[in-house]
């Protein structure tokens, strides 16, 4: 009896030690169970995943989907996630064969990575039917080797937002050159206002500053040149941009500890709304988020400008960092035909597209009515752009994009010099391309 007790105890102990470690294996088992359940419900129900968490945009999609369901008799189950959680969840789902039928993407390298694995449906033929209604450049961002893998439903750019009330109060003009920007920031700081709001824990908001600086200094196509290998990531443009970014930190143009603030939970928007910061560089998605979160601010304070030109630089003030949001169909879907119809619907239906416009977002259709000033400013910037560069963290391959974001965060945290950052980028680029 004693020997048996000992055996059982050892077994228990062994199991306890095992359970107190490496629980990373848990996911595999659980996912298999989950996917079994979902596959059975598959048939006549489509799964749609997107990131439009702002109430107004979320509603637009819900209502559009309702209309779609009534028209085609297919139920659609919607899952809404925030930006970074979405990326993680989708990657896991794609990896375990449990992907939704229709999913959001930003095109570019991120979507291409999935397409290369054969996980996305090629809709080149299908989109012929409706592509003329949409923004051509946006479709282009979902096209790889001549094949189209996604249909745009929203387009985006990266304006420089500013609080016009603060500017009026201190007699400031919107800066169009870097020298003017420096004067504006000096005045703001003298009055206890932080020039730029920034929440950089997710790394991409800060990286956008680096990208804009690089585009202004070296020309709009500087990143395309680096990606194609024409120039190196250690080109002096990137060094200069890194130095300028570090100087902005030294001059106190960003909040302290910006690298720990969280965009998704509103840390920087909160400061912008409260007037603690006067400007913010963000995607045009912010127009609609602001309308949804703080209508008063939207009506009275929000105004759009463009990142100023830099003296001696090759870039124009009208060169845009832009992008689009698209829907793609997963190769795993049980109902590819209906999924493609859903994608078409969300890209082209007047209900959805006009709904987005009313919610302050720029749709993919080229013929929409816009009623509010900030949104109109955004659309004008887009149509007057001299160059559209797709969001860098979407254009680069995933591993390189992570390195890009990491190095920019390090520059903002002053833990890397611009030479070190550039070197890391080039090293990684050479090892994978």
């Amino acid at each position, binding site marked *: 009896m004693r020997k*048996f007790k000992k055996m059982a105890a050892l077994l228990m102990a062994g199991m306890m030690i095992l359970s107190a470690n490496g629980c990373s*294996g*848990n996911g595999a088992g659980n996912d298999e169970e989950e996917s079994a359940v979902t596959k059975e419900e598959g048939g006549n129900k489509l799964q749609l995943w997107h990131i439009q968490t702002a109430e107004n945009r979320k509603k637009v999609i819900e209502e559009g989907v309702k209309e779609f369901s009534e028209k085609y008799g297919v139920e659609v189950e919607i899952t809404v996630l925030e930006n970074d959680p979405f990326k993680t969840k989708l990657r896991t789902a*794609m990896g375990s064969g449990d992907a939704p039928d229709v999913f959001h993407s930003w095109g570019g390298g991120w979507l291409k990575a999935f397409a290369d694995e*054969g996980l996305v449906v090629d809709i080149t033929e299908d989109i012929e039917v409706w592509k003329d209604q949409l923004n051509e450049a946006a479709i282009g961002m979902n096209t790889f080797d001549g094949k189209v893998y996604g249909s745009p439903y929203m387009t985006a750019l990266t304006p420089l937002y500013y609080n016009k009330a603060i500017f009026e109060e201190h007699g400031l003009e919107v800066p169009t050159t870097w020298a003017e920007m420096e004067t504006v920031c000096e005045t703001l700081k003298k009055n206890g206002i932080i020039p730029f709001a920034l929440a950089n824990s997710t790394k991409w908001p800060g990286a956008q500053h680096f990208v804009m600086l690089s585009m202004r200094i070296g020309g709009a196509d500087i990143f395309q040149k680096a990606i194609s290998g024409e120039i190196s990531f250690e080109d002096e443009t990137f060094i200069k941009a890194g130095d300028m970014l570090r100087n902005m930190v030294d001059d106190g143009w960003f909040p302290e*500890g910006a690298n720990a603030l969280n965009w998704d*939970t509103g840390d920087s928007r909160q*400061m912008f709304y409260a007037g603690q910061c006067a400007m913010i560089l963000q995607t045009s998605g912010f127009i609609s988020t602001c309308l949804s979160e703080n209508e008063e601010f939207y009506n009275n304070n929000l105004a759009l400008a463009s990142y100023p030109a830099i003296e001696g630089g090759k870039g124009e003030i009208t060169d845009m960092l832009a992008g689009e949001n698209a829907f793609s169909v997963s190769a795993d879907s049980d109902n590819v035909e209906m999924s493609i119809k859903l994608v078409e619907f969300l890209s082209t239906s007047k209900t959805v597209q006009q709904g987005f416009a009313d919610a302050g977002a720029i749709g993919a259709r080229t013929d929409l009515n816009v009623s509010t000033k900030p949104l109109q400013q955004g659309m004008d910037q887009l149509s007057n752009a001299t160059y559209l560069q797709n969001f860098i963290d979407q254009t680069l391959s995933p591993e390189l994009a992570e390195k890009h974001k990491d190095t920019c965060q390090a520059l903002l*945290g002053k833990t890397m010099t611009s030479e070190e950052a550039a070197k890391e980028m080039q090293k990684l680029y050479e090892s994978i391309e």
Partner: protein
Amino acid sequence: MIRSKRKWSNRGTVLLFLLPALVIYGLYNVYGIIMTFYFSTLDWPGMGPYQKAAGVGLTNYFKLFSDKEFWHAASNNLLLVIVSVVVQLGLGMILALIINSKIKGIKLLRTIYFMPMLLSTVATGILWQLMLHPYNGLINNVLRALGIHNPPAWLGTESTVMFALLFVVCWQYTPQYMILLRAGMTGIPEEVYEAATIDGASKWQQFWSMTLPLLSGTLKTSAVLSIVGSLKYFDLFWIMTGGGPNGYSELMATYMYKKAFNQEQMGYASSVAGSMFLISMVVVFIFMRVTRRRDEGKGGRLNENC
């Protein structure tokens, strides 16, 4: 004859009761762990079928050995282990003594001390993130009111981030050890203390020479829990800083997460997981060996005359 029959039916019953737990455990833990070690021998991004991924043997482990970022993360884990054991057990012990005593208002104190445990980790993380916000957070506003002009950006500065994170972790987990230790204390019979008092032992002597040794089992259990928990810790660090700023507060678990889900290197991430497993086993083994007392047998219990 009858005796051995009973032995067998006893074993059979026990095994039957263990079976459901063993099955679930085997499927979700043992199988998962084995698969993780298998994945660590692949060069697999995590998407697409793993069967097609190239096998690379122990390359991932060699890469890990010279990976600066991993060792930085491991050193953070080490710091977390030390601080957790010293602070959470130490403070837990003090609090346990307090709530075990008969001072006035003890029930209220008990409730207050216990509260941090009631919050979910995510809620705790977001709560403290808001409190530590450099401009609008409670902590810095209080500091400014006290006359400190430039309070640090706690989670955004390298020199303060670990301190802030360790503080929050201890805040959340100390009550757990307080409860565990107090439970251990209530197991010590009153007569022991009465006898000691009659013999003239001071309160301090009673604590040091009686309470502590009698609690050794509970203390060891708590220490093992704390050590292993700290080696695999993820939650609060991920929520509050994501391993930032720029990887300064990285833990092995957050590093593993990033490699697996952000940088599409599931094979490499699995080798991180495998290493964490091995490190934990070694550390616990060493700990159990070192703290084994002279009068304990191999089983780790005081020898009784059975």
